[in-house]
């Protein structure tokens, strides 16, 4: 309804300019910096997509790698049969179907049960894929020989991230986004307001999963070889959660503030202390948890905007009054 208002056009225009500028990165950076950029952008998509669902609903999902892996596997299976854009469409469909199934069967679970379920889901999907490969195709491990360059991967991811941010931005101003925030604050209240809680949650879960699936599909050609252990590595889910939490999952650009420093930190640690990576990483996480419990966004809110009410609740209140007048 408010598409043409300046408070919509301005951020979108700024975003478009920034993304257009980023698209020229390959002209300046060598392939090492490009691979670093791919890492940053792919985690940015994953963490933002994760926060899109988990931020407002406060459901901690450890299923990121399930969808990521489904995307990667779709490319491994279909990559040599059809054109890449079609493969991406198929990956998106596969991710959507799985997310729908998972969503409707689990989003009634609350709190810690949901966390455990999503973690178990990774193992479940990995075992199902393994079982299929062992008993049906009798080939474990698939080869992805596609002539997709590093720069192509970067551009695709960048475009995906742009679409994701735009989606998130529109969503934040839509009735669906509003409903989601109410659910996050209090599910019972949401029900009493007449919100179909399950439907809203599933819709968001599917949307978030779709972006994760596409990320996996876009990255897959980089690995040449995919097996269930590589594609469904649970580490990825944890990394995404940590990055999103460091940044702040309740704001659209929050996760990005976690992704950039952590990806660069991983890189510096790996490059400079290859033998002490895990120990140093553990120390860094402790520092984050003790000193930055609210994430980077939380820090900003604490020191830079002390007079405002906490930002997590203010959009709701403004929105509420808007809804009333509407």
């Amino acid at each position, binding site marked *: 309804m408010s598409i043409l208002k300046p408070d919509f056009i301005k951020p979108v225009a700024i975003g478009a300019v920034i993304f257009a500028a980023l698209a020229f990165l390959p002209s300046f950076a*060598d*392939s*090492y*910096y490009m*691979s*670093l950029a791919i*890492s940053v952008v792919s985690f940015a998509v994953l963490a933002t997509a994760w926060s899109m669902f988990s931020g407002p609903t406060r459901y901690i999902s450890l299923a990121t790698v399930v969808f990521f892996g489904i995307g990667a596997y779709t490319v491994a299976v279909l990559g040599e049969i059809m054109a890449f854009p079609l493969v991406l469409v198929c990956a998106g469909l596969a991710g959507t179907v799985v997310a729908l199934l998972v969503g409707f069967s689990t989003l009634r679970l609350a709190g810690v049960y949901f966390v455990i379920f999503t973690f178990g889901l990774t193992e479940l999907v990995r*075992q199902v894929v*393994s*079982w299929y*490969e*062992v008993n049906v195709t*009798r*080939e*474990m*491990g698939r*080869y992805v*020989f596609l002539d997709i360059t590093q720069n192509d991967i970067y551009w695709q991811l960048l475009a995906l991230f742009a679409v994701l941010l735009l989606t998130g931005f529109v969503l934040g101003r839509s009735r669906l986004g509003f409903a989601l925030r109410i659910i996050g604050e209090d599910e019972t209240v949401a029900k009493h307001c007449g919100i179909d809680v399950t439907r809203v949650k599933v819709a968001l879960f599917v949307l978030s999963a779709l972006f994760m699936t596409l990320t996996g599909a876009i*990255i897959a050609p*980089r*690995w*040449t*070889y*995919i*097996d269930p*252990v*590589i594609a469904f*590595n649970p*580490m990825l889910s944890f990394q995404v959660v940590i990055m999103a939490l460091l940044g702040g999952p309740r704001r659209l650009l929050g996760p990005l503030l976690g992704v950039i420093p952590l990806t660069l930190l991983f*890189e510096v640690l*790996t*490059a400079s202390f*290859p*033998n002490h*990576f*895990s120990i140093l990483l553990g120390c860094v996480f402790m520092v984050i948890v003790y000193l930055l419990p609210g994430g980077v966004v939380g820090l900003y809110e604490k020191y830079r905007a002390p007079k405002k009410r906490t930002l997590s609740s203010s959009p709701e209140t403004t929105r509420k009054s808007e809804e009333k007048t509407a």
Partner: protein
Amino acid sequence: MEISAKLRFATIAAATTALMSSATLFGANAQETYRIGYAVSKTGPGAPGAATSTIPNYEMWVKEVNDAGGLKVGDKQLPIEVVEYDDRSSSEEAVRAVERLINQDKVDFILSPWGTGINLAVAPILDRAGYAHLAGTAVTDKAPQLAKRWKNSYWLLGTGEQYAVEMAEFLKGLKDAGKINDKVAMIAVADGFGIELSKAGRAALEDRDFDLVYDKTYPLGSQDLATIVNDIKSLGADTFVAFSYPPGTLGLTEQSRVLGFNPKVFYAGVGTAFPLYKDRFGADAEGVVSLGGASENDPKIADYIKRHIAFAGREPDRWASIVNWASLQSLHQAIERAGSTDREAVNAELAKGGFDTILGTYKPGDQNFWQVGQWQDGKFVGVAPTSMEGAHELVFPKPAWKAAN
């Protein structure tokens, strides 16, 4: 703990040697060290394998070369400088680490990572940047196609099929001699390696008129295989074949021993040729068959094993370690033959082959090593291909488990 202290020491030692010699021996304008980079799995699921077959060999080679004054390049001696990373058993990390080695560290040569998946992940990058790739720990049925696709890549351990076919051929010899019946019980780990070998093994055994009375897979990481052993025990197969990975290999052996399952031929997979197998099972290792093998009567191999024990404090495994070492020797000679650090010149020499290694005259990619081996008197010796020089007679039938209780 001990390993990581050693690792650090080796790195510091290599770096110090490199710095000192560069400061004292050479002028500032010429290349002063030969920079070698590698990213291997120091942590994660690949770590035990990398710590067995890959890392000790790399470190020992660098130390030996530097102790001898370095690589002879033309009329200069260039010490080796090492840049190493941990790929944390992740393809994505490995890809990035190799990009870093190429573009940031600008190393002269890159040694291969550990494992089939990760070697495949880095292969296209090495190829694009013109680096040779001596993949020392990848078993893939696509090996011949891959070598064609990336012309400077060498798939040293060959295809899964070759091991399975050689084993089937060897079993056929025993069957034809009336020593074993035609019943074979086969299991495989549900992972790339196990599936590839069991697929090839199934076909090869059926071609040779064997009857597969048991043919199942078990999940990766599973160690408790007692139910499988129990099932198989009553089937009357003289031959038991397990295309297993180290945890399964150890579990199967243990449970067969406890349950008194003692077929005439007991073939277990990766891990059997590891020194820890002998350490764990002692005299009960006697007669167990697996892939790999070493001619310990060959003075070169015996000397290599001795040096490996002195350097790493333990024996090398009798399969990938030996092939890895031969590839390092090949690289050493290729650099010296090329007389320059120029990558293309070294690559061209590698492609020519004819290197003098512990595997005899060797060209990377040659499959002139043992495909089937057996523990005999505390040594893991080669028994097939029987046409190879130094092939041992099979200890047959497998002696009874001794320590069962």
